[in-house]
């Protein structure tokens, strides 16, 4: 009896299917519980990986719910790469469609934030722009400048108070009532998480997309305070160069 890896894989991920033929206990009898060692290793290790990757999602729904949900997720979306640090990239879309999670509508945004934290943590190193580089630009050319952002920078759009939901579940505190798009940067080795106003997020999204400063500012509306946004970006080492 030839046991193929297709049979093995199918039985590993489907607890209701019998172990493949051709697997033996030492007494020659068809293996069952011994096959379950592999089944258990796969399910537990992938569930653990998801729990490590999404600690705030886990906290928001509770560990029992999370592990049951992870069991569904890992069978629908097994890893496609041995690089497990980024496992779970389908989690936001999965949660958005997962019926038992609909009572917590901001879960997909929290999952996006937690994915971005890991991508930021492992992003390429970059040398930040000198803080005075902007001051050296002639004022009449300022509207034409564009910025290059560090690869660790991520902007998570959200209509929920995302930053304070994340903060309350990692550091404590109250959850805000207003929408909070969230900025992720990496000043050195540990990612930083900052709340933005929707206007700041709109300007920043345009700058990240490569729009010139003058065009990006049109997304901010009247009285937009550019100094506050640039000050935050500079203090977080989020900018690596400026082009005129």
């Amino acid at each position, binding site marked *: *009896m*030839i*046991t*193929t*890896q*297709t049979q*093995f*894989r199918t039985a*590993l*991920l489907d607890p209701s299917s019998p172990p493949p*033929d*051709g*697997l*033996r*206990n*030492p*007494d020659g*009898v068809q*293996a*069952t*519980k*011994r*096959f379950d*060692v*592999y089944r258990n*290793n*796969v399910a537990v*290790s*992938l569930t653990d*990986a998801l729990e490590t990757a999404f600690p705030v999602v886990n906290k928001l729904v509770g560990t029992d719910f999370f592990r049951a949900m992870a069991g569904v997720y890992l069978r629908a979306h*097994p*890893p*496609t*790469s*041995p*690089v*497990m*640090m980024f496992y779970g990239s389908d989690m936001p879309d999965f949660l958005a469609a997962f019926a038992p999670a609909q009572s917590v509508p901001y879960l997909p945004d929290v999952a996006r934030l937690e994915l971005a934290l890991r991508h930021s*943590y*492992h*992003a*390429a*190193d970059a040398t930040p722009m000198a803080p005075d580089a902007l001051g050296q630009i002639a004022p009449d050319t300022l509207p034409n400048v564009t910025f290059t952002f560090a*690869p*660790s920078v991520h902007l998570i759009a959200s209509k929920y108070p995302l930053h304070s939901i994340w903060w309350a579940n990692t550091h404590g505190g109250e959850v805000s009532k207003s929408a909070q798009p969230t900025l992720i940067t*990496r000043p050195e*080795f*540990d990612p930083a998480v900052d709340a933005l106003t929707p206007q700041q997020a709109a300007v920043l999204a345009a700058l990240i997309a490569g729009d010139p400063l003058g065009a990006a500012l049109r997304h901010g509306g009247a009285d937009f305070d550019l100094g506050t946004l640039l000050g935050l970006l500079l203090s977080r080492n989020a900018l690596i160069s400026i082009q005129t």
Partner: protein
Amino acid sequence: MLDATRKSLPHTPGVGYKAQHFNDIMADAGPVGWLEIHAENYMGMGGRPLAQLRHLSEKFPFSVHGVGLSIGGEGRLDADHLARLKTLCDWLNPASFSEHLAWSTHDSAFLNDLLPLPYTQATVKRVADHIDEVQSTLGRQMLLENPSSYLAFAESDMSETDFLAEIAARTGCGLLLDVNNVFVSATNLGYSPQEYIDAYPLDHVGEIHLGGHDEDEDETGAPLLIDSHGAHVVDPVWALLGYTLAKSGPKPLLIEWDTDVPEWAVLVEETKRAETALALT
């Protein structure tokens, strides 16, 4: 590019590196003479993991130990993953690269476990072809590690030791002898671990692994040991190490502790025991 080679791994204890031990290791590594990393944990583009390796590689030779290449897979090796391994090895320039006699990827699903394969001439050819591809891509010899087995395949028609000997002869690869895996497999499948060592091609061994396991039973009440890397090395495994070293001579000895990772001081105590075993060789 870094240089973590120092030519080869020294015949001293090493440990599987965990990021939480960085400051302890930099301050006082005790008897630890080299470090091993799981390749897949260092495949990001930058940040703290690679910065820590940059510092540690100034003090220690490194072993890069892959856990995801699926060398025993029925399909082709993942070319993207092999390229990532090459990038890491070219950058770190480790003293050793090793992988497992196992498979983990099938139809593009990575199952995050070291899965078993039958021992036949057909699987010898498949594994040997994959090892040829790894060694030619990386431009270096690799070591192949024996698995922990929980069950046997009806279709196997050769012993694991004959299988490993034939792979080493065909490909020129070295072997990573995991003494805990020998003890686990021998207990689970009902053979003598000493006879396994007697039959094992010890001349090809470039590194020895030691780790802890969990104890369970199968449905008939027979012992079922499970490789966990989450506990102390047990006395019968230390005894099997002594038996092995008496035949093989001194080798680089690694303490693997990957789950429920203890404080650095606990690992140092374990490496002192490994140092004693080497001193008796």
